[in-house]
């Protein structure tokens, strides 16, 4: 421990304006995937990387990486000399439950095809999104996505905590609220809910416990629940 009580001289902050932080005028934009992909393919053989489009105005596209190569891709993104994405800002989970979509398909004999509407089942999955920035080069963000194959048993993903420590607590949160199992995470416990809690409440199909005994201003589902509770109470008394 440093000697305490000595003069402030060693700790004085320089008030000279030049010593203060400066504006980084026009921070450089990040390279596109086409520029990075060749380098990455050399560094990590077998990596699949694709762009997930984002239709919001001015919003950046995100990159989907396969889970087997996610860890090495993360190391590459951090250590690459032009990217230098040394700062992982935000880690979050997204739950995409199984859904059915209607697709128009051409069917029938060749030459006499008909357009038929078919319902298709898109399997559900859990997705973890990382927002990466560079503090050294002051650019970003790069949005990295990793997906699990399903929502049931196979929900493990590699933990990126060895690459960026900032993922530590956020990945614990994703594990707690979404149920994504992060392999090689140093301390994978529930972060927000208590130990012994059995569900993952941020999933879309989570059913909260029914504790609506007194609802003076009920609406929709709560109204139904309050009604049911009232009926039970009247029946029992």
């Amino acid at each position: 421990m440093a000697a305490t009580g000595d003069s402030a001289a060693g700790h004085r902050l320089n008030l000279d304006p030049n010593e203060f932080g400066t504006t980084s005028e026009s921070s450089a934009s990040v390279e596109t995937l086409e520029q990075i992909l060749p380098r990455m393919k050399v560094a990590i053989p077998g990596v699949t990387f694709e762009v997930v489009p984002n239709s919001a105005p001015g919003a950046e596209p995100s990159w989907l990486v396969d889970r087997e190569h996610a860890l090495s891709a993360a190391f590459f993104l951090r250590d690459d000399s032009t990217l230098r994405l040394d700062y992982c800002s935000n880690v979050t989970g997204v739950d995409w439950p199984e859904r059915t979509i209607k697709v128009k398909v051409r069917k029938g004999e060749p030459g006499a095809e008909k357009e038929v509407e078919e319902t298709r089942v898109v399997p559900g999955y859990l997705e973890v999104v990382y927002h990466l920035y560079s503090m050294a080069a002051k650019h970003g963000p790069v949005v990295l996505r990793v997906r699990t194959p399903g929502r049931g048993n196979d929900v493990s993903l590699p933990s990126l905590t060895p690459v960026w420590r900032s993922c530590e607590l956020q990945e614990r949160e994703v594990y707690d609220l979404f149920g994504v199992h992060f392999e090689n995470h140093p301390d994978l416990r529930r972060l927000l809910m208590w130990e012994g809690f059995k569900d993952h409440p941020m999933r879309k199909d989570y059913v909260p416990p029914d504790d609506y005994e007194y609802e003076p201003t009920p609406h929709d589902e709560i109204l139904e629940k309050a009604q049911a509770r009232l009926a039970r109470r009247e029946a029992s008394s």
Partner: protein
Amino acid sequence: MPSHGGATAKVPTEAGAPRGPDAYRLTAGDNEYDDGSLLEISMGPQHPSTHGVFRMDVVLDGETVVKLKPVFGYLHRNHEKIAESASYLAAMPYTDRLDYFCSLTNNWAYALAVEKLAGLQVPERAEFLRVITAELTRLQNHVCLAGFLMQDMGASGTPLMYGFREREKILDLFEALTGARMMCNYMRFGGCRCDTPPGWLEEVRKVVDRFPRFLDEFENLLSSNEILMARTQGIGVLTRDLAINAGITGPVLRSCGVDYDLRKVDGYGLYPKFQFRVPLGDHGDTYDRYMMRILEMRESLGILRQALDAIPEGPILDPKSKLRGFRPKPGEAYGRIEAPKGELGFYLISDGSPNPYRYRIRPPSLINLTVLEDLCLGHNVADTVTILGSIDIVLGEVDR
């Protein structure tokens, strides 16, 4: 961490079976600490200096911390889940309650993310009002932080009283503008809710003009106080590399010399128009973190003066913005601002419906706590309290 060859619980696997050394295992919980020399204590969730319902499980060797595990979730009030089942507008008053010292910067971060998602433009006067309210928020957050930090060190009362006295003046301004002292609910997508009441900007100028006197007093009172220096210098040193890798943001990051202030880097709002400097520290210790806040307040005052001089007349809301029936097109956006505690970000995914499909807050307080154990190891237990105070957490944001 020192190793302790203490008692290990030996559990035979099966009676009668031939046993080798592999047949023994350690039960969870009966760990290396039960040889009597170490003490495991739980600080919080009800503890006078954990800034709310934060809890730390601390293992002590005498007075020295050898292990510290933060425990979260005592204020987990499901903000994200509630916001995903309500309209975009309905989430705005909830953001006030995230970091309940700084409701206006929370409003701004959320509005910024939605504006990015829906492509709304903010009129110039509204941008000025945002800058003014955000910088006032920064001032009142930092004075309170300094007061609480001193309270944690045992300066019970005086600095906190002085801090709250100045905060009251700023809260009066908020109340006159927005109608509430703490939960302002002021910003809307594409602008602000209401224009300033008559004479409000002059009131702000009065407060801004008198604030430096308070800061001088505060510095006279504390910054060269020998006890403060002894308790903070060299305590809880954060290194530059660890800070970057652990995603630390805000004054805690800048105290170890990393020049990363989103007002400069992203240049959101009107910040590129203003002249201000970003204070940087060299040591990354508790004293540097304290001084960062004091210096930042002086820069904020400069921004406020420039903004008050230049604020134009005009509309305060984008005419395209809708109060009811607001449905952004499908897509996603991540908006972030430099909140007083660090980078506050909102990540939104829209599926075209009136409520967000995914609504995520990137809380600076939570992520700044990643390094709490690293900062506290090897220090006395009383220093954990000052280190925690200098990180500046608010539990509403840590647990959401």
